[in-house]
């Protein structure tokens, strides 16, 4: 963190107006910050804060309808905004490079990864194919990919998410740029992979002495890698400074609010043992997916849920934690019989749900409800909130008038205006929609609520509110909740017990403090070690 006379990158009073008719006039409004060579600058903010746009503006990759009207982007003293496209092209990929959020869609699906990396070298003047090939192998090796000679000829879809992001990074590093912009590079990755990628970026930055601009929404990540931090809110920079200062002594109320909302296990508030009556007993549940196969090849078999057993009492919250592909969502779908079950028992109030036919199970459905992940996809855009909330009770034989009255009550209960009844989901924000989703589930007065990644699509501040709401409702209504999440921090915060799933099996099962402090399984240990920002306690920052 050595300050230099001329910063590597200086954003000076940059403004980018939005097209007319949107909720605000500027995407970013008069922002200024510096990035020095050899430092990692984190731009942090919630969705719509303008952080990604700023990154794209630097690279000159804004969509046609957005043009900066004011300010300068000085890269090594030269104003990038004044450069013409061909000139910019010589800088891009050579002196400044970018890594994107979604590594699959950011790679050309029809081009071998080696060729995609080599292209950077080719467009910037490396004429020798041999030289390019050697460099590609070096780069793949450097970013820690196994068997570079082989991997070079693979297509992106063959690679795992982490490998793809390593390819992206190799591509960005090809010509050892002075500036690396990473736009949420780990958001789409599992937590263990995220830890590896963060480690890689830090390693590279140190080895090459680059300036890194790291865009993220996750304060845990910030705590792990940032030298300095810029906090953005709705196009404005509300706070900037050294990482330690911003994280531990936030000044601006917005920053404080964000940090307060970061999920964190408080060792202090250990949960009391729940001793309600037994509601659900799952025994030896199995679900197998098989695909492909034919006369000449074997089908691919995935044991998505493999011999899983657990119990749940009234008023209890069970957290099911796992990375993508662990089978946690399949488990949720099995419990709701949204998919065929291949074996085992689901004893709900003592009777087995597994053998029931779809029509025999339908009357029982109201007892087991679900809150979905995506607040945008989970509400029918063609129906009013009122219709969404009354459909369930009506389908279960409740007269409409009664259902309507109940729906209005529920809107109030989940913290929405009663007038929301006649409006369409599009008119609400993500958090509000998720409240509608919860109200829909509650409209049937269920005894068990399965929440599948119900807060992971939400911004951190909204996330906290929804979590609070769920806990509050559980206390009021004494329902059992199965909370499926990839985020161990959230599970630890709200669950009575946690089941860690790995490759279709529960590898760790117990109360949060045991899972966190004394994980028995190697996977759980790796998972906990990978939690970003574990050395930092946000609670202390906003005390």
């Amino acid at each position, binding site marked *: 963190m050595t300050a230099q006379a001329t910063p590597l990158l200086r954003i000076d009073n940059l403004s980018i107006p939005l097209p007319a008719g949107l909720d605000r006039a500027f995407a970013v409004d008069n922002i200024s910050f510096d990035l020095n060579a050899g430092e990692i600058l984190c731009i942090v903010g919630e969705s719509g804060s303008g952080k990604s746009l700023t990154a794209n503006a630097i690279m000159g990759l804004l*969509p046609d*309808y957005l043009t900066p009207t004011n300010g300068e982007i000085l890269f090594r003293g030269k104003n990038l905004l004044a450069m013409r496209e061909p000139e910019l092209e010589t800088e891009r990929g050579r002196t400044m490079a970018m890594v994107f959020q979604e590594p699959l869609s950011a790679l050309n699906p029809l081009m071998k990864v080696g060729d995609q990396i080599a292209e950077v070298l080719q467009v910037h003047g490396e004429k020798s194919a041999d030289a390019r090939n050697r460099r590609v192998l070096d780069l793949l090796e450097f970013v820690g990919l196994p068997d570079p000679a082989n991997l070079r000829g693979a297509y992106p879809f063959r690679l795992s998410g982490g490998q793809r992001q390593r390819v992206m990074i190799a591509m960005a590093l090809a010509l050892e740029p002075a500036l690396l912009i990473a736009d949420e590079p780990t958001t789409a990755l599992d937590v263990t992979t995220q830890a590896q990628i963060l480690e890689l970026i830090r390693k590279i930055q140190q080895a090459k002495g680059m300036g890194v601009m790291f865009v993220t929404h996750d304060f845990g990540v910030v705590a792990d890698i940032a030298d300095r931090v810029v906090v953005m809110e709705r196009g404005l920079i509300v706070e900037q400074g050294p990482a330690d200062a911003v994280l531990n002594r936030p000044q601006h109320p917005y920053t404080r609010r964000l940090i307060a909302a970061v999920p964190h296990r408080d060792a202090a508030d250990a949960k009391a043992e729940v001793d309600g009556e037994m509601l659900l007993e799952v025994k030896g549940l199995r679900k197998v997916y098989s695909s492909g196969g034919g006369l000449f090849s074997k089908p691919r078999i995935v044991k998505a849920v493999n011999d899983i057993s657990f119990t749940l009492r009234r008023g209890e919250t069970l957290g099911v934690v796992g990375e993508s592909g662990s089978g946690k969502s399949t488990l949720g779908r099995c419990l709701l019989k949204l998919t065929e079950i291949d074996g085992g028992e689901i004893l709900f109030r003592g009777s087995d749900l597994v053998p029931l036919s779809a029509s025999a199970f*339908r009357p029982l*459905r109201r007892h087991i409800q*679900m809150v*979905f992940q995506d607040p945008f996809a989970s509400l*029918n855009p063609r129906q009013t909130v009122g219709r969404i909330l009354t*459909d369930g009770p009506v*389908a279960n034989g409740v007269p409409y008038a009664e259902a309507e009255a109940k729906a209005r009550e529920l809107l109030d209960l989940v913290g929405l205006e009663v007038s929301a009844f006649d409006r369409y989901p599009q008119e609400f924000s993500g958090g509000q929609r998720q409240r509608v989703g919860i109200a829909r589930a509650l*409209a049937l007065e269920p005894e068990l609520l399965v929440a599948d990644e119900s807060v992971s699509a939400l911004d951190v501040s909204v996330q906290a509110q929804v979590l609070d709401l769920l806990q509050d409702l559980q206390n009021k209504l004494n329902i059992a909740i199965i909370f499926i999440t990839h985020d161990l921090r959230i599970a630890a915060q709200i669950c009575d017990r946690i089941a860690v799933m790995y490759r279709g099996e529960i590898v760790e099962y117990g109360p949060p403090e045991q899972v966190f402090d004394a994980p028995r399984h190697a996977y759980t240990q790796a998972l906990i070690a990978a939690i970003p920002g574990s050395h930092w306690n946000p609670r202390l920052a906003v005390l």
Partner: protein
Amino acid sequence: MTFFKRYAQNYGALIGLAILVIVAVVALTAPLLFPVSPWQSVGDPLLSPSENPAFPFGTDMLGRDIAAGLAYGARVSLLIGIVSTAVAVVIGVSIGALAGFYGGRIDDILMRFTEFFQTIPAFAMAIVLVAIFNPNIVSITLAIAVVSWPPVARLVRGEFLSLRSREFVQAAVVIGQSGPRIMFTQILPNAISPIIVTASLMVATAILTESSLSFLGLGDRNMMSWGFMIGAARTMLREAWWMSFFPGVAILLTVLAINLIGEGLNDAMNPHLRGRKG
């Protein structure tokens, strides 16, 4: 209101709508505009458009008024276009919805069935159907419907397949709604805009198909239609250009108008695509 605003932003779509409205008005008021049957000889044969102001579009070889033919032809073109499309959409939506919603073996069977129809060239099939069941307005309409439903079925199946796994549909299952109810109240309303857009384009194609059938002599012999007029005038192309020219232009304009409307609808119903269009 916003829908119309979005639609109105597309000038092409507005022009298309204007043309179609004119065509529709002419079609509806044809008996008022031309009280004498379009089949009736009303003037000298083969009057060119400039010869007699009473016949601004000229007359054909039997002295029939081309203008009257155009007006009555609009009725047939629009009627066949719309009805055959409606029938095709009903067939296509039913098959596509069942296949997409239930999947598995039902999907396999229905899609194989659809493929049979797609493998046979649509126009060739239409010719055979019309010829076999004798050309009349019913057989032509049904034949066009029978050859044009497969794309709808595929579209609807695709929509249903993707919507079926959407969370709001899962939610409908979870709250205990029945299969048919979910299909009609949850999925179908969300699949309706691509269906409408496709249907509007199918109307255009149906009009083209009808005219091609008539051109080959497989039209309804009691209905004055544009394709028939061109077919009848085809042999006299050099002697009396106006006999085939005006009906050709009528088809072109109408089909063009409907296509423009289709694009306008598409833009208006899928506003997120608009940013990318020119």
